[in-house]
């Protein structure tokens, strides 16, 4: 590639300034604080509860986005219907909207006096409890200010990632591939499982990782709908903000580093899955 030296130099400098330096500064703050102090800050029930909540709900939201993002992309690419272009453009809205605005809008919608919140309380909860009541937990019908609300906000902010990463891949898959599979005697489900999904999985996993990463760090949209009750609906990024509010930069950095380490471990695991699936499939 011509100008490799120059372009690589510019890219690496920019990457360092924009990404590596802030993370370096965070680690530097943590290094000054000391490993044992970091551990003491993180190793408290309330911090563990927040970290567990953030990562668990982010994982659920990313899985939801993985499934529905792939379906959405498939529908948008393969079918022609009125309003398709509009829908296609709407997928990017969560990117364009300030997250706090999204949070306030979602809260207005899912609060008990909101349209969907009221519907859930008056219809879904009674019916659900009548049907499933004997089998387990009762659903009170509350969405905003519960973990369900947090989940919805995280789904909202992460949805475009999966849809947008798999869309170009689906466009590449020619219909002849499916037809060939059919003429060789494969049923629809078998074709999806053995032909389509293997081709989609690397892109879908990338989208999954992006959606997961975004959800873990999400703050603006979640704090409005979460209720922020310690041990119940308090997300880890809020704990960091709380520490900053107390001018406690070291403790904030400690929780930040804990999140960084867990995120890094999760992304590494996803990468390993990607490598494994690529080996198994043998192409792409």
């Amino acid at each position, binding site marked *: 590639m011509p100008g490799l030296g120059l372009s690589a130099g510019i890219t690496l400098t920019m990457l360092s300034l924009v990404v590596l330096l802030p993370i370096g500064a965070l680690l530097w703050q943590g290094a000054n604080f000391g490993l044992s102090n970091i551990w003491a800050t993180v190793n*408290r029930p*309330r911090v563990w509860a927040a970290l567990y909540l953030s990562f668990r709900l982010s994982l659920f939201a990313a899985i939801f986005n993985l499934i529905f993002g792939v379906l959405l992309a498939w529908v948008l690419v393969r079918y022609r219907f009125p309003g398709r272009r509009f829908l296609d453009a709407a997928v990017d809205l969560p990117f364009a909207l300030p997250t706090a605005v999204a949070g306030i809008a979602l*809260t207005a919608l899912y609060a008990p*006096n909101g349209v969907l919140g009221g519907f859930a309380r008056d219809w879904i909860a009674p019916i659900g409890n009548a049907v499933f009541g004997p089998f387990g937990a009762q659903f009170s019908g509350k969405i905003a200010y519960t973990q369900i609300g947090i989940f919805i906000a995280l789904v909202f902010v992460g949805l475009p990632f999966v849809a947008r990463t798999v869309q170009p891949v689906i466009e590449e898959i020619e219909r002849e591939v499916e037809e060939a599979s059919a003429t060789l005697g494969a049923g629809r489900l078998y074709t999806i499982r053995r032909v389509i999904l293997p081709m989609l999985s690397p892109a879908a996993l990338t989208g999954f990782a992006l959606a997961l990463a975004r959800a873990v760090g999400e703050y603006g949209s979640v*704090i409005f709908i979460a209720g922020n009750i*310690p*041990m119940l609906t308090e997300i880890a990024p809020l704990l960091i*903000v709380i520490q900053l509010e*107390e*001018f406690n930069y070291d403790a904030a950095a400690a929780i930040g580093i804990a999140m960084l380490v867990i995120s890094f471990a999760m992304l590494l695991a996803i990468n390993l899955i990607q490598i494994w699936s690529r080996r198994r499939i043998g192409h792409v």
Partner: protein
Amino acid sequence: MAPQAQAQSLLNVSYDPTREFYREYNAAFAAHWESLGKDRASIETSHGGSGAQARSVIDGLNAQVVTLALASDIDRIAEAGKLPEDWQSKLPHNSSPYTSTIVFLVREGNPRDITDWGDLIAEGVQVITPNPKTSGGARWNYLAAWAWAEKNGQEPQEFVGQLFKNVPVLDSGARGSTTTFAQRGIGDVLLAWENEAYLALKELGEDQFDIIVPSVSVLAEPPVALVESNIADDAQRELANEYLDYLYSPEAQALAFKHFYRAWDTSAAAPEDVERFPEVELVDIEHFGGWKQVQDEHFGDGGIFDQIYVPQ
């Protein structure tokens, strides 16, 4: 006197619920400044959570004047060396040109019959307050409840703990809590700054909410200060000093009353703005040992507030 080379400018870094007050005050001050024969000055005000605003100034936001919710936030700026440690003695009334207190906002007709702090721990009553860890105003809420318990023979720590067990949503700031209570219809009672409560009444309809004044509350003193190290020259110092001094003038005090603050000088205020405020037994921060002690004991890491949420 030689004409000044350029228009003087001033940045006032303030906290959230003073938005409406300073909008009017800045206009009044600009007129006052020109009436002194000075050149037009450009005055900007920035709003946000009090602690976050303090942090911006510590981290280098070029504010000449800070008007924050808590003295401890300005103390932090002083610790960073931006203004002298004895800042609070420089202006009258602990450098607080106006004060406020904490009251209850309940739904029209007061259906849960809430009259004082003791009613807030009843079974099933939902209390809305912002998070004391992120909101200056919420720290006053907490302290007011504490003071009431002390004066009424209750174990304060236990009382405050029970109160927060009745809180279903902890927003990060005062405006967020007002929205949760007023717009989302959550909760039976909102613990609010008195000025926020009146503002909510004015903006959202007097037929929807009532204000209940408890028997004991706190004297919240939101102080103001000149940020010494951000003053560029003598002309700007003069402007900044006048900006703060003028807050104590009868005209500005009348504006503070109009915006539902309890100010000091009633001489120019509209009588109905003054009469609005009933007498309350007010406890000040010194009663709790000053902000430094309160911050460590109650709101610091592992402090009394954190213990409320430790699993039993």
